[in-house]
């Protein structure tokens, strides 16, 4: 991780990143800070949790190889053999 630069900004004040990216603090409330971002169209701006979710989904989407399937399911299941819910009356609306 790179070191973090910490700045204190008030609503209406801006920060520049490089020549083309401008971040303005629009409002600060108890619910959070509202920020505005001005950047070139080609710059991807993402909430970090969305990127984390994309990456985690990519890993989750790999799943199992079909050869490993039965073994893996056994290992993933809880050790108790009691059913945790009955399949599948809930969906028969």
């Amino acid at each position, binding site marked *: 991780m790179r070191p973090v630069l910490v700045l204190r900004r008030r609503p209406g004040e801006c920060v520049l990143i490089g020549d083309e990216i401008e971040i303005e603090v629009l409002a600060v409330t108890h619910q959070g800070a509202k920020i505005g971002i001005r950047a070139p169209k080609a710059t991807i701006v993402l*909430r970090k*949790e*969305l990127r*984390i*979710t*994309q*990456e*985690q*989904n*990519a*890993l*989750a*989407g*790999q*799943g*199992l190889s*079909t050869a490993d*399937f039965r*073994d*893996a*399911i056994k*290992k*993933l*299941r*809880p*050790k*108790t053999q*009691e*059913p*945790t*819910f009955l*399949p*599948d009356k*809930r*969906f028969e*609306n």
Partner: protein
Amino acid sequence: MRSVETKYFGTLPCAEESVFEFPLALPGFEDQRAFVLIETPDSAPLVFLQSLYRASLCFLAFPILVVDQNYQLAIAPEDLEALSLETGRQPALGAEVVVLALVSLHGGFVATANLMAPVVLNLKPRRGLQAIRRDRVYSHQHPVHGQAEAERGCVPC
């Protein structure tokens, strides 16, 4: 009845009304907007979220309470709206929505579940969405072993 080609179970019959539409897709899989939920006695409580149009895409998932029986929902109002749920409150687990934690495997069957971004399935209408939490209360890589093994008895999804 239509059929769905699945990753692990061959071709299965699939009623139209058992399909969950994901109008916002899943992050990282932006072209996948329809899934079916597959549950089998052999794998319960593990369930499978199978893409309707890409057989090779099938997520493993646990009902979220299997991973953490004290899990507290915090679905953002705009996500509730996209799911056609009331925005003023959190929906009832099991009755209104099924909430799943997607499982990732990290080799050697070490598994984690994503509690930061659960998949919420509204049962009526059948619509799904991955509800990314805005807080940092839960991990996107919550260890599954131990938790799942300690789990006993009945829990709703």
